[in-house]
């Protein structure tokens, strides 16, 4: 069961470099391609990205969610920390607010906290809801992205 005492809990800050090859791998995965020559050049060619008006090679819109899995021991450990049974875990909602760009080579610090823990519905049909808020801050101290993740436990 989602643990109400976790409300307000902040996860340890995590700093990582946005790797160029991870961007390519991710862009191939979400466009269901086989190799980089088949994807949008802005995701592998810095010149093409700059010509298209980006500061560097940008990340695809949903790439920031990877930070959730790259830290804190991954999904299994994170759900354990949150008191959620992974066998009953459902991802209900995801939202991103883009304040600035994230480019290959940026050094991003992720701050994540639990902003809501609630119960919805009654009796057998009730579900536990955990809402996480994540801030991504770049090497210049700029908040570049905020995301909210709503997890359900069936």
């Amino acid at each position, binding site marked *: 069961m989602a643990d109400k005492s976790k409300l307000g809990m902040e996860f340890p800050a995590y700093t990582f470099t946005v790797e160029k090859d991870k961007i390519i791998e991710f862009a191939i995965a979400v466009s269901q391609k086989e190799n980089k020559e088949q994807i949008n050049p802005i995701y592998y060619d810095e010149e093409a990205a700059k010509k298209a008006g980006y500061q560097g090679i940008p990340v695809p819109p949903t790439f920031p969610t990877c930070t959730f899995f*790259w830290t804190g021991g991954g999904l299994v450990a994170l759900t354990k920390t949150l008191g959620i049974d992974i066998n009953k875990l459902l991802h209900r909602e995801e939202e991103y*607010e*883009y304040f600035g760009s994230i480019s290959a080579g940026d050094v991003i610090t992720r701050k994540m906290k639990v902003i809501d823990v609630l119960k919805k519905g009654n009796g057998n049909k009730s579900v536990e809801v955990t809402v996480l808020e994540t801030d991504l801050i770049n090497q210049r101290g700029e908040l570049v992205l905020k995301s909210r993740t709503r997890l359900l436990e069936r």
Partner: protein
Amino acid sequence: MAVNYDDIEVGNKMPVYTSAPITRTHLVRYAGASGDFNPLHHDETFIKMIGSKNVIAHGMLIMGIVGEAITSWIENKYLRRFNTRFLSMTEPADLDDMENTKDRATIIVSGEVVKKYEENGEKRILCDIIAQDALGSKKLSGFFIAALP
């Protein structure tokens, strides 16, 4: 081709985007790219253990496909907000029965501009989006906001 604010009217439709039928290989590739190794998405023995029938696609792969659909129309750099609610699970196509399983694994993304407005000194559009499979089952609904030149 670049989309400009003045070219867009409320009620305009986003170009419909149709994914390739999602296979288990797509799921494994997404798992590796994203780091989401929930066995629900690749391990048939885990699926049996929890009494389910099939592995299911990552919700975030479907949202990633929707992101690809959006940025095929509106450039990535113009996105200001992107929200989706996941509505149902997606089973991948079976390679030994593509004919009967490809439709459940094909994601069709559509959208409609519902608002044009100015905010933070930017000209913005709000566009509702829906992703469904080729059988008509809704996978997610949501919206995006973009600031256009």
